[in-house]
């Protein structure tokens, strides 16, 4: 809840908003660049100090975070990157689970011993997804997670992550209407300055919805128009 809105460096970024995110479902937050989506996500993740007068449900320790960059560290191999969380907390890593998750995202046993520099962009993002799942948190925050990979890879990654993240509370920040319509149970569009969220209806059917569905394509066109208006 942000009764006063949020300003960063004296510039109002987010307007007055009261946002409740449904548990166990995927909420997509759409908006043009600079609309405050990432700020909102970082606020929820506890990466920004909560402004005075605002209340954000503290989620420390319950959040897994996946960003646009894969954020793999080059000094650890793939398995080491998947178990990075345990490494940072000084815990013993659950290697069996890490291997199972790598298999679930479609990577082989040989890939697990590779260095990140040896992987393609799509494979690196798969490792990032496995690392996010390895954290096993009820809330998953994704900040344009697939925007850096090519379109076919993005499509495959969306289907894969929808299956693997089912049942968790997901807040997905994206600027891709198709991605939001395929994956989300609820879509919010951030628009205006300072930005406020507005609800947008989602097509029928459970995610991941097929990209060829006519209803979904029509909704994508309408959403695109709406986002274009939000910019002007």
């Amino acid at each position, binding site marked *: 809840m942000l009764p006063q809105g949020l300003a960063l460096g004296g510039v109002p970024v987010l307007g007055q908003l009261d946002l409740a995110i449904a548990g166990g479902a995927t909420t997509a937050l759409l908006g043009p660049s600079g609309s405050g989506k990432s700020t909102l996500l*970082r606020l929820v*993740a*506890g*990466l920004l100090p909560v402004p005075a007068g605002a209340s954000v449900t503290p989620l*420390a*320790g319950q*959040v*897994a*975070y996946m*960003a646009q*960059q894969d*954020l793999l*560290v*080059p*000094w650890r191999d793939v398995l080491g990157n998947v178990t*990075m*969380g345990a*490494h*940072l*907390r*000084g815990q013993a890593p659950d290697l069996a689970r890490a291997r199972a998750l790598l298999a679930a995202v479609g990577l082989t046993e040989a890939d697990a011993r590779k*260095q*990140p*520099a040896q992987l393609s962009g799509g494979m690196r993002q798969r490792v990032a997804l496995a690392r996010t799942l390895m*954290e096993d948190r009820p809330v998953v*925050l994704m900040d344009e997670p697939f925007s850096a990979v090519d379109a076919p890879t993005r499509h495959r990654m969306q289907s894969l992550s929808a299956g693997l993240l089912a049942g968790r509370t997901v807040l997905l920040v994206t600027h891709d209407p198709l991605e939001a319509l395929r994956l989300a149970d609820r879509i919010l569009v951030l628009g205006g300055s300072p930005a406020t969220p507005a609800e947008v209806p989602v097509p029928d059917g459970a995610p991941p919805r097929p990209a060829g569905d006519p209803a979904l394509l029509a909704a994508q066109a309408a959403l695109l128009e709406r986002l274009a208006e939000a910019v002007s």
Partner: protein
Amino acid sequence: MIRAAIAGLGLLLLWHGFVWLTEVPPFLLPSPARVATALVDRWDIILGHALTTGAEILLGLLLGSLLGCLMALTLAAWPAGRRWLLPLLLVSQAIPVFAIAPLLVLWLGYGMASKVAMAVLIIFFPVATAFHDGLRRTEPGLLDLASTMGASPVAVLWRVRVPAALPSLASGLRVAAGVAPIGAIVGEWVGSSAGLGYLMLQANGRSQADVMFAALFVLAVMSLALWFTTDRLLRAAIPWQPDSLLSENNRKVTP
């Protein structure tokens, strides 16, 4: 490698030709052959002095690098101390080491200690600044990720920021390996009883230019060996560091 050998041989020939043509007296500029003779004849003396200088350089490099790393880590881990330590860091470089060399000899004596101190003073700065820069420039997304993973500040420093800063530290250490001999030699010139600098000073006083050149040659070989060894070790220690020069060669397409 072959190109370097040919270039070196060409320079030697040019030098020899110049001395032969102008008939410069040997106490001004000895011919390469004379320098080689001096190197062989006085080998035992030169080797002894070279060992002293080498020990000073290595000790200085070790202590200076350790001190530089410690300084950078302190600056990174203790933000409040930055205001006190950063000016100190700058002042340590604002005073030219040549100017305080006589003082150091006065305080620490004619032995090895004053030379090591001099080398430490020169080495400390590039290591500290390069490593500190690296520690400050950790990818912000990586810090966000570590924060959501519940990492303590100590874990973030040791397991994220330090490994991420290793390539920067390596740049600092390369510079340090390059300048380390300067510190030791300056110290020996100011006042010493052993070392290549001392030998050169003595040879200069007795107009033995050939011995001077021989000592200079040994010093240059030692400096190059130190730099290449450091570079090789750093490359092996940080294999993930991208090297555009190396990959340029790999990418070259043979026509």
